[in-house]
Each structure stands twice: as structure tokens, then as C-alpha cells.
């Protein structure tokens, strides 16, 4: 009689008889600045959704606040554009209640590593099956050029005009330090093939897959990754069958390391290395417990609940 116990059943996907095209996932016209790295992430995500044939209504993009957090508006899926720093708790709630949904979380560097840092650490530990994208351009863009935790030391901003005071926070090293983290990767928006391959590996990983995407802000920090964009020798690809392999990039990025993502010690060493930018899957462990599995409970019908509640009242009967 009640809808509540049938809710999940009713909303199960029907047999997909239609083929989804890239355009099936297009939402509003993206309004980011020309040349913003967000555009290429959006394209890679749409490509991923198409390749995986994700059912749009079974897919939710959750974001916080910032330039990158406009992301859900530009997709034709369900979206949740919430508050600054708090995308991950919302994603946790969605996934806990509706584990059958594909849940993506999109955050900027201020969102994830500053105001939302507590949630970032704990989401990695919960290890729900979420795909988490950190769009890291090292600057607050929407509020116009303030220092973020990942702003390079010395870079002049509106809040630290003499140059950012502190060494930049290393999101990979932090993530790799969290107990029960199960997937940590880094890619760059100016290497679309690598970006796409990394997103696909992240999506296919069961557990929280954390992907730091290096990207340029053409308005406020055009110089930050300029050297790496112009000189591919500054980039080292981490290749492994269990991570990402991008043979089409071999000619551009000849510097490669065969890195087994199961090797956490090497992953941490590579994450700390500042001589080169490493792109690839640093760490992956499919065996880590996932919170939604750990907390799985048998659903009960309203009538079952009511009869059990009568037993509870018996316990408290005078």
C-alpha cells in the first residue's frame, strides 16, 4: 500500500532501448570563460557518460560553489548545486539512500581542499562508490583571484598581493594519507586523452575514486601550468594495466613510469616528488570496505515495521 517500500523498485532503470549520444547529456550552454579548463573536463565527462551509456535520470552530479561547481547545470542529468565545500556530504546522503544511482561529485580547489577539507578526508575514508573530481586551477575564480590552498607559493593574488605565503597543499599526498582511500589519480585538462582515460578508470572503480584534474584559469592564473603545457618533458605518465594506459600519448609524453597502483609506498613517494608532474593512477585498491555495503540493511515494509514497533512498545510497557 505504501509507496515508500517500493520506491527503489519503481525507480529502477527500465531496459535501455535507446542509444545515448553525446548530445543526450547536454544541458545548458556552458558559461565558463573562453579557454577555461572546465570546458575540456565537461567534454570528457560527456564522452564518458556516452561511452558508458549511463542512463541520464539514473545519474546525479553534485557540486559545491565556485566556477567548477556550475558543472551540473551544463549536463542533462540530475544535478545538485549546493553550498560551498559541502558537495561530499550531499553525495554521501544520495548514495547511501540510492546506491543504484551513478553519483559524481565536482569540486574546485577552494571547495574541496579548503572549506570542505574535513568532508574530503572523511569521504575518502567512507569509500562510498562515488566518482570525485577535483578541478584544481590553484585559485579562487568566481570570487576573483584569492589564494587557495593549492595556489603556488609566491603567486600574487588579491588576498595575498605580495605573493601567497605558504607552500601549496598537495592534494595527492593528503588523499594518499587517508586510511581506506581506495583510488587516487591525477590528470590534466590539456591532455584530453589522458583525462578521459583517467575518468573512465575512476568511474569503473568500485569505491570513492578521487581524481585531481590540473587545469588552467586563463583569466587569473594563466602561467601556473604554462611550462608543463608547453614542455611535455615536464610530465611523467604513470602507466599500468590496473591504472591507465594511453598508447596514443606515447609520442608526446615519452617519459613514463610503470607504476603498480597497488604499491602505496611508491604512490606516496611519487605524489611528493616535485621535479615533475606525474599523471596517472597513483593508488588503487578494490578490496577496501565500502560504507554503503557496510551499512546495508534489509528494507522493511510499513507493516513489518509496525509489528516490530509493537514489540518495542512491549519492551517499554508499564
Amino acid at each position, binding site marked *: 500500500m505504501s509507496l515508500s517500500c517500493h520506491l527503489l523498485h*519503481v525507480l529502477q532503470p527500465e531496459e535501455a532501448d535507446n542509444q545515448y549520444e553525446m548530445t543526450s547529456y547536454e544541458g545548458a550552454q556552458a558559461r565558463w570563460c573562453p579557454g577555461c579548463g572546465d570546458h575540456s573536463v565537461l567534454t570528457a565527462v560527456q564522452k564518458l557518460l556516452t561511452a558508458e551509456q549511463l542512463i541520464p*535520470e539514473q545519474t546525479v552530479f553534485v557540486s559545491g560553489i565556485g566556477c567548477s561547481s556550475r558543472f551540473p547545470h551544463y549536463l542533462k542529468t540530475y*544535478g545538485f548545486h549546493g553550498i560551498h565545500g559541502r558537495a561530499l556530504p550531499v553525495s554521501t546522503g544520495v548514495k547511501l539512500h540510492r546506491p543504484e544511482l551513478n553519483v559524481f561529485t565536482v569540486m574546485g580547489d577552494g571547495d574541496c581542499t579548503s572549506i570542505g577539507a574535513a568532508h574530503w578526508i572523511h569521504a575518502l575514508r567512507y569509500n562510498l562508490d562515488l566518482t570525485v573530481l577535483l578541478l584544481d586551477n590553484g585559485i579562487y575564480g568566481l570570487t576573483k583571484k584569492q589564494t587557495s590552498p593549492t595556489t603556488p607559493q609566491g603567486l600574487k593574488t588579491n588576498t595575498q598581493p605580495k605573493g601567497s605565503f605558504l607552500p601549496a597543499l598537495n592534494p595527492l599526498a593528503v588523499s594518499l594519507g587517508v586510511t581506506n582511500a581506495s583510488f587516487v589519480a591525477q590528470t590534466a585538462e590539456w591532455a584530453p586523452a589522458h583525462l578521459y582515460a583517467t575518468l573512465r578508470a575512476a568511474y569503473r572503480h568500485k569505491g570513492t575514486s578521487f581524481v585531481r584534474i590540473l587545469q588552467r584559469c586563463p583569466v587569473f592564473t594563466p602561467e601556473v601550468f604554462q611550462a608543463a603545457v608547453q614542455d611535455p618533458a615536464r610530465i611523467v605518465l604513470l602507466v599500468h594495466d590496473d591504472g591507465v594506459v594511453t598508447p596514443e600519448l606515447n609520442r608526446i609524453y615519452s617519459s613514463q613510469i610503470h607504476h603498480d597502483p597497488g604499491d602505496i609506498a611508491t604512490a606516496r613517494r611519487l605524489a611528493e616528488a616535485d621535479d615533475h608532474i606525474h599523471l596517472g593512477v597513483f593508488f588503487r585498491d578494490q578490496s577496501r570496505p565500502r560504507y554503503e555495503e557496510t551499512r546495508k540493511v534489509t528494507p522493511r515494509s510499513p507493516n513489518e515495521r509496525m509489528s516490530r514497533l509493537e514489540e518495542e512498545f512491549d519492551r517499554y*510497557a508499564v
Partner: protein
Amino acid sequence: MIDATATAASPSASTPPSVLRVPEHTVEIVSDSGEGAQKCGQIFAAVSAKMGNGVWTVEIIPAEVQPPPRVPEGASGNRVRVGSGPVTNWGDQTNLVVAFNEQVLLSRHRVGGLAEDAILLIEEMWATSDDPAVVAQWDAAMEELSSKSYRIIRVPMQEQCLTLVDNPRKGKNMFALGVLARIYGRDMDRIRDQIGHAFRKKSEAVYTTNVSLLELGYHWAEQHIDFRIDIPLEPMDTPLVVMNGNEAIGMGAVAAGFEICAMYPITPATSVSHYLSEVFERFGGIVHQSEDEIAAAGVAIGASYAGKVALTITSGPGLALKTEFLGLAIMTETPLVLVDVQRGGPSTGLPTKVEQSDLLAALYGQPGDAPHVVIAPATIEECFHVMVTARRIAETFRTVVMVLSDANLATGVSPFPRPTLDARWQAAPIDLAPVAEGDKPYDWDLETGLSRRIVPGQPAGMFTLTGLSHDEGSKVAYSSGIHQKSSAMRSRKLAVLQSLLAPPPVHGDEEGELLVVGWGSTKGAIEEAVDRTRAEGLKVSSVHLRFLSPLEPGLKAIFARFRQVVAVEINYSDDPDDPFINEENRRRGQLAMLLRSATLVDIDSWTRVPGEPLRPASIAETIRQRVHSGGAA
């Protein structure tokens, strides 16, 4: 009468005890932490309720988790008010105390909660201790207690218990229970049953020992206590359940069909999650302990957005932290139920003590115009039912419902009629009919502001929810017209809800000299004070509000029928006689401020923040003063 030097009164077996017949009596059992006074008090209260007395129990909790022994601040136990009819509040002063040492007894004396003629039963082993320091403490305590007309009765608890067990520290509570059972004529079979229930996870030997100690105490009292107290029984036909307000909220959450409670530990709200953590999975629900208060709100909102209404529970400091998320839920019309079990504030304040000072923060704490529903249960029974109401309103009106309980309800234990369950409480009013192409997520009905909720998974319903100003289609829209319209739609829902409410009933006559207005846990104490002063001939009535937003209708008309209206609350207000305080700068209680602004009636304010529930006697006194002064301040 001071009887500190003599050992217990020893009436000869032939002298029948004197019987004191009273409509109510308040009993305290206090010990060091870990000596079991609470278990003794709980069983005494449960059996009293089963026999047909009204009961209201409050816990006496030490400030520390493991306080040292024999210090006043370590007092641990229960305070049980037992009455002939229903007991709706903790009452005034304590009439009888059983204390396991003189230091915990002193603490009860020092808080001023003992009646002038209270009977004190005190473990006497300390008077003859081998340690001269302990004897000196005993003597000093007896000297201090002699300032009142207490009747002090020395009880050889240790000596008696040693005849049965090697370690009386674990048995005195049952001996004390036996003494109380004899004094108050409690049914021993029911007590044995209750002991069996309390020790159901222990061995048969434990049960047998405890019952032997109980009987030992009973027989000791039979021979050595020269009085009995008779509180006439008025058994009710209806089956009763007994629990505290936080357990009632937890059970109410189950009855209402919630499936997730997201929380972060905070006193005094947390025990709701303790209860739910124990039982919720059997009902298909989970308690999610988040990394912080903010995340708890976020998880609840995410779950609610995904199709089920979630619950988050907190107390004042946590309410402050959740504020931004509450604004988001209101702006995006995402149903959410938040329970705030209020404690003393501001800041960390009085974590374990009652206060009603979150009202304005609950109503107006969110920046921007953020209309939402605020309701307050007035009794432990209402703590159960309010959860069903809250969920239904949250879903029907697509809004946030805040439930304001407090530490008084959270820790008070009192029986109430066993609820008759209704499976419809659990039905989710989510319209899962197919979404047609072009259907909008905020398709506001222009008259009521209500709109259909679309949840992820529904084909053709895809939209991006946003906390930015948005139009019917959830498209970001900064135009003044859209913001005016969407603000009106969110606000209108409160007026629609109010149109469904009835004016609150008046306790007492419909008109008179003075009307007392209250909200939340003070209902029992206020109505008892009104009844007492009405019995003295005063023309006083009271009204108790459950809805704070929207307010219940018809208040102005009710207020107009009384010469004076005073709001009585447990929050701070300036005393008009204090230095610098005048009519223009006087800060009134929070309900008084709310009602004055809503009705333009000159409502006065009488509030106290003693860190404990209001006593009927203090409310009655302010009623008398106001009636006799005729409203002249």
C-alpha cells in the same frame, strides 16, 4: 526533628507504623557513580507507574564521567515524583532521600531542592569509619544538615548487606529499593518482575541475590521504620508505556518511517541516536554518524533529495553549524526534519541542563528570508507523535521542519498511553507518476506555493537543484520578478499550513485576569501552577503553543479576553527592576518577543535560566504577584 545521633528508630514490633496519606511525594535515591542508585530509582518509578501512580523521573547526573567517591559533585541517582493522578512535571521539593553517603546527600541539600521537613535515610557506616577524616566529614555534614528541620534516619546498609553478600557496593541499591518498597507499600511481586527484566541478560544467581537483598531491605524497614507513606493509586484502564523524551523521539522517528538519522554527537540530543543505533537496523534504517554537524545536515539533505525524508538531530551549537545547509534546504524546497534538543546557551553553555533559548535562532537563524516550520512537543508523549507530524509536514510542504525539544523532556521519564500505530504514518507522499516532458521541479501552485517533488530516477524529470535564486524550472534566475515570486511561494506555504491549524485550547476559563502563555516542556509545570492558583480563586488560565512557525491561529482573540498576558519560558529576559533596564531597552523572553511582534499585544515576560526545569511553585508565585498587582509593574 533531628535524629542524627541515634541509630535508626526501632519501634517495637507491636507498635503499628504511622501512615501518612499524601497526594504526592518526591523521592530521591543518590549514591556515588557506579553504586546503582539509578537502577534503584528506575525500578521504583516503573513499579509505581505499573501500580497506578503518576510518575515523573529525572536523572541526577554527576558533572564528570568518573567522579571520585564521596564528593558532593559526584552525586548520581534519580529523583522520582510520584502522585495519585498523572504527574506532568518534576514538581517542587523533595520529600524523602535515600543516600549512600553523607557527601552526596549534602549536594542535594546544597542545591536547595529538599523540603524543610524532608526525611533523609542515610547509610550510617561512615559515622564509625576507621578513617578519622571520613568521620570528621560525617560530623561536619550532620552539622550542616542541622540547619533545616530534616528528619535524619541512619540505615545500616553495609552491615545488613554483608549478611548476604561480600561486596555490598553492588547490592545496596536493592536493599534501598526494599526499604522504599516497604515505606511506600510497593508491590513486591511487581518489583521482582522488574528486577528480572533489569537483569535479564545476567545469570539466575544475580537475580536471586538481588531479590534477597530487596527482601532484606524490606524486612529491615518493616522492623525499623515507624512510618508508611500512602499515595492513593488511580490505575488507568489504558495500557501505558514509559520512556524518556529522547527515546520517544527515536521511536517516533521509526513510526514516522524515517530510514536515516544523520547526526554528530552532542549533549543532550545524542541519546536519541543511542536508542536508534540499537534498534534502527531492525526497521531498515541506519544512524549515520557524520564527521561533523554540517556534514550530518548535508547527508540528510542528500538522502532527502534522493527520495526519502531524512532526520538530523542536534543541540544548540550544532544548530548553529547547520545553518547554511538549512537555508539551502529551505531555498531548494528539500524536505528535512531537524530535531534540536535544547540545552543552556550561548556557546557551550550548560550542556546537560534545560533551556528554551534556541527559539529565535531556530525561527530566524538562517540569513536571508528562510520561512520554515518550527514545532515544539510539550510532553514526552508528544515527542513521539511530533515526529510523524514533522515528517508529514516536511514532505507535504517541501520544507524544513524543526522540532524543538529540550533537556527536560530528553531526560524526564514518565508513562503515557501506548500509541495506537497506523501504517499510514509510514507512507511516503511522493508522487511517482511519470514526469511528462516539460514538467517543472518548482511548478508552484500560485495560490498555495505547493509544488510536486521530482526525485532522481524519474525519466524526463531531470533538473539541477540549486541554492541560487531559481525559476520554476530550477534555472538560475537573478531577475527581481523571479526572486519576488519564488520568495512569495516559499513564504505562502506557512500561511497555508496555518489555515489547517486550530486555535490552541485554553487551559482554564476562556477569559479572566491573567493568561500564561508557554511552549515546549513547561506545559506540565505551567498548568499545575495555573490549577493551584485557580484553586485559590485567581482568574488565571494558560495557553500552550506547539506551533511556533507558523503560529497557531486565533491568538490575538484569545489574548484580548484577558487583562494581562505573560509568556513564561526557560530563557533569559531582563528584570524590569534591574539597573539601566527600562521599557525601551528591556530584553524580553523569546516567545514574548515573537508574540508581541505577531499580535501587537503588550505581552509581558517572566523567564528564568536556573539550569533546571521551572517549578510549579515559582510559576504560581509569579501568577499571584501579577494578579495582585493588577498588571502594574
